């Protein structure tokens, strides 16, 4: 199996410039993230808000510039590309955004929104546009009759389908899906997920799927990266792999089963995600971790495969 995407030691540091009453500060939104995404696979990235998963998505498409690290797409070094070359390459790698309500220009008709990618890439030809648009709409299960509608005339689920159609317009190979169902009702979420499954099979797509919903990720993805405060703390090679990191275990426990016969007395994790500024040394999870020992507060654990798959923990389960 060949790797479509190769991410090595990717980091992004954000700096705040400070002011009269505040010193300049810096934080890592994404810190030393590495993974490979093979063709046709689906990797899920899970974590709570502020863990850096959306920043990671944007870094991969170079919508924001990485601070350090390398990115390879189908063998090409992305960070060496000029902005113009990068723009051409993005025809192969597209993104679906979280909020379909703000991802489409409210003044554009659906047709205009869907031909935008062709215009950007300089591939727009007047004669074939209508044909392309109705093919794209059919592909995502919408009626071609919606082409002349405006975004406010269609529902949230339909808007997200338009968002997916727009991402597919240039026949990309990689789709980065940033919480594509987070703002939708469950019945519509399930529709969109089954559409994405179908598209993956029909078009041979590769997905990077970002979500805060572990049960959805376990259902939809082949592999899972669990992030906490900018770092990957565990990389599960299969969705049913044995969980080693205490944080992943907590996430699993916090996910409720939709079955009243399986009520669990969960011991919820106390505390909350700490501020990414001025992090104390050691493991970022140490303060909330039931297994934390002295070493966790002095040394930052690195990802190690000593336990079968990559886990960053001094005292894995």
């Amino acid at each position, binding site marked *: 199996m060949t790797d479509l995407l190769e991410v090595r030691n990717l980091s992004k540091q954000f700096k705040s410039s400070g002011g009269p009453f505040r010193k300049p500060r810096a934080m890592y939104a994404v810190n030393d993230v590495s993974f490979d995404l093979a063709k046709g696979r689906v990797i899920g990235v899970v974590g709570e808000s502020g863990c850096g998963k959306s920043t990671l998505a944007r870094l991969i498409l170079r919508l924001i510039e990485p601070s350090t690290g390398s990115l390879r797409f189908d063998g090409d070094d992305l960070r060496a590309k000029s902005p113009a070359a990068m723009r051409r390459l993005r025809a192969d790698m597209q993104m679906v955004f979280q909020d379909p309500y703000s991802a489409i220009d409210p003044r554009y008709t659906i047709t205009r929104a869907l031909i935008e990618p062709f215009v950007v890439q300089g591939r727009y030809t007047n004669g074939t546009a209508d044909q392309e648009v109705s093919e794209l709409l059919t592909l995502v299960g919408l009626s071609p009759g919606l082409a002349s509608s405006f975004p406010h005339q269609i529902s949230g689920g339909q808007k997200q389908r338009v968002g997916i159609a727009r991402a597919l317009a240039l026949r990309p190979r990689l789709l980065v899906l940033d919480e594509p169902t987070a703002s939708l009702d469950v019945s519509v979420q399930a529709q969109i997920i089954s559409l994405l499954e179908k598209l993956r099979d029909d078009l041979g797509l590769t997905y990077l799927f970002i979500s805060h919903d572990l049960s959805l990720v376990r259902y939809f993805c082949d592999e899972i990266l669990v992030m906490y405060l900018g770092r990957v703390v565990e990389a599960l090679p299969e969705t049913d792999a044995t969980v080693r990191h205490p944080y992943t275990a907590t996430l699993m426990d*916090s996910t409720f089963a939709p079955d009243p016969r399986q009520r669990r007395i969960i011991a919820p994790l106390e505390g909350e995600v700490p501020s990414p500024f001025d992090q104390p040394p050691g493991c970022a999870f140490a303060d909330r971790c039931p297994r934390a020992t002295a070493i966790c507060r002095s040394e930052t654990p690195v990802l190690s495969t000593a336990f079968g798959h990559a886990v960053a923990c001094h005292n894995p389960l």
Partner: protein
Amino acid sequence: MLEVRDLEVAFGQIAPLCGVSFALEKGETLGIVGESGSGKSLTAMSVMGLLPLSGGRITAGSIIFDGQELTKLPEAAYRKLRGGRLGLITQNPMTSLDPLQKIGPQVDAVARLHLGITGQQARARTIEILGTLRIPEPALICDRYPHQMSGGMKQRIVIAGALAANPDLLVADEPTTALDVTVQAQIIRLLDDLVKERALSLVLITHDMSVVAQTCDKVVVMYAGRAIEQGPVEAIFAEPQHPYTQALIGCIPKGLSEDEHLVGIPGTVPTVMNYPKGCPFHPRCIRAEDICTKTSPSLLPRGDGAVSCHFPGAAP
């Protein structure tokens, strides 16, 4: 403790809620579950007597709280009840606290107003309640402003405010929707403990079937302003009778079995302006027949619960 019968709500000519009935005992948790626009928040607002704020009114039915009819209660009497014996926890803790006031006075005010105690007594109570909600260093927290706290902490403060006057009934409208999963688990656990320790009655409004499965004794499933199925939680999950309830449960990914396949429900939830004729679910229903497009089914007892469908029954 609470009995709602055939509740109907109207905003001018539009009737977004019709024929909702349920009853709740002391120490019980009732879940009201449905997708956006199903009328679940409206039901909560009706119980709290807050409909006039948004221009709605109750046109039929009754709400009886501890033997007292609420629909005809004058506003002054409602004010005594609301925040006192009736507590409300709103969805967004970021906007339900006053940003300009410290935490302590905001929670104190509830007890001072409803229990008629002095400021000092109220503060002692506040600190005690914050402690029972597992807020670290409650005395220090009283001097903080809401913006200095995280979302989960703010939601605990909102809960503290709702508990300050010893309510008998708590209405929680999507209390964990704005929170992360680990924090959601904390808050749900906390509410569950409160119900048990204080013999509270809790109306929990949510769109999340998993939260319902983990916390509630009874469930009301709403769709397009109607209760389409209700009953004990075990029955609703084990043998749902309404095709919508079945589909809704089918939308949640359960486990890791390879043959599990999410399908979703075709179409979308209708808006108030275009509720379909007949059964509101018929355009999306796999069992719909001619009669479903014409007459609206009524909520009839079936098994341990009740269901509103022309063709109720277990999934094929």
